[in-house]
């Protein structure tokens, strides 16, 4: 949490993390499209020519003042491809909560597990404890054929007490619910 005392703003940073092509950018794009234009900033995407996230996507969402302070949410995605370890760690810096976007397809199960392990490693490298860190799990692409049963994904990815959501980010199913859960996890700790 970052408080800008001068502007009386409370900034929360929420990072979308997950394996390559799991739908992190699609989540942010849907949130941007659904947010009241008066309350959102521009959606910034640093992409390669192949439309893959190179560095990060970023958008800001703000609410009206509460007790004299304006809450602002800074949403980031990290690039999923394994070669961008350094930028994933940089974007995680200062994060208040993480949404882990898992790809439900059975053939991506291993990638989900490996990337979740990298999240834990990166959190530890930043001096944070993965077990205590606010995390929300999203099982995306539930509309596709060849998906893993939820029970299997839970067994492989979920920890006790972690909120979990099923989603079809391309249609917006489960996207806002996931975001609200991520924000609630931070504010409920206040």
């Amino acid at each position, binding site marked *: 949490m970052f408080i800008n*005392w001068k502007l009386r703003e409370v900034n929360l940073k929420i990072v979308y993390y997950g394996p390559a092509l799991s739908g992190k950018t699609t989540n942010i794009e849907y949130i941007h499209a*659904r*947010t009241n234009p008066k309350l959102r900033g521009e959606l910034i995407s640093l992409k390669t020519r192949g439309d893959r996230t190179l560095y990060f996507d970023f958008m800001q969402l703000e609410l009206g003042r509460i*007790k*004299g*302070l304006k809450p602002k949410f800074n949403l*980031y995605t990290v690039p999923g491809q394994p070669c961008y370890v350094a930028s994933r760690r940089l974007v995680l810096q200062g994060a208040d909560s993480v949404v882990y976007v898992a790809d439900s397809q059975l053939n991506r199960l291993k990638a989900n597990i490996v990337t979740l392990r990298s999240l834990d490693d990166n959190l530890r490298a930043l001096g944070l404890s993965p077990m205590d860190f606010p995390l929300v799990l999203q099982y995306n692409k539930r509309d596709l054929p060849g998906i893993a049963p939820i029970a299997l994904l839970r067994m492989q990815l979920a920890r006790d007490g972690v909120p979990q959501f099923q989603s079809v980010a391309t249609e917006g199913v489960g996207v*806002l619910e996931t975001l609200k859960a991520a924000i609630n996890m931070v504010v409920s700790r206040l």
Partner: protein
Amino acid sequence: METGSPPEALFVRIDDCLERLLDRSRAVCVLLADISGQLIGETGKDAGLDTPALAAVTAGNMAATAEVARQMGEVAPFSYLFHEGQKRSIYISAVGETMLLVIIFDELSQVGLVRIFARLAVNELLDVAAELEPWLEQASSVVDREFGEAVAEGLDEAFI
């Protein structure tokens, strides 16, 4: 202002410093952000810039080039970056290890001029940064459970 917030005098010093820099360097806009891209202060003409997004992206830029420096065998990150555009250019300077100073300027100024005054401003801001740093991540007494609940309720109204 409630107890538990930093002294107002610190922000007056930041504002004075940024405005002096804007004036002396004839820049379009000057931003001060923390290293993760959160905006701390800004001054300048209303140039239609999305300053929170600019702060986030320039912080990313600075972080990426820190890795470039490391790969090159440099012992420390680059102290400043400069990108020249057709109409506007940007000069980004580290302020110690915790903040960034961003100066956007057009043809009314020159990079040499910007660089000289940016250096002076960085020296001045280093003192302020040291005093402000402990406050940056400290939750105020007003950011409490009640605040959290109001945020959660307010979220529903943000979506259309």
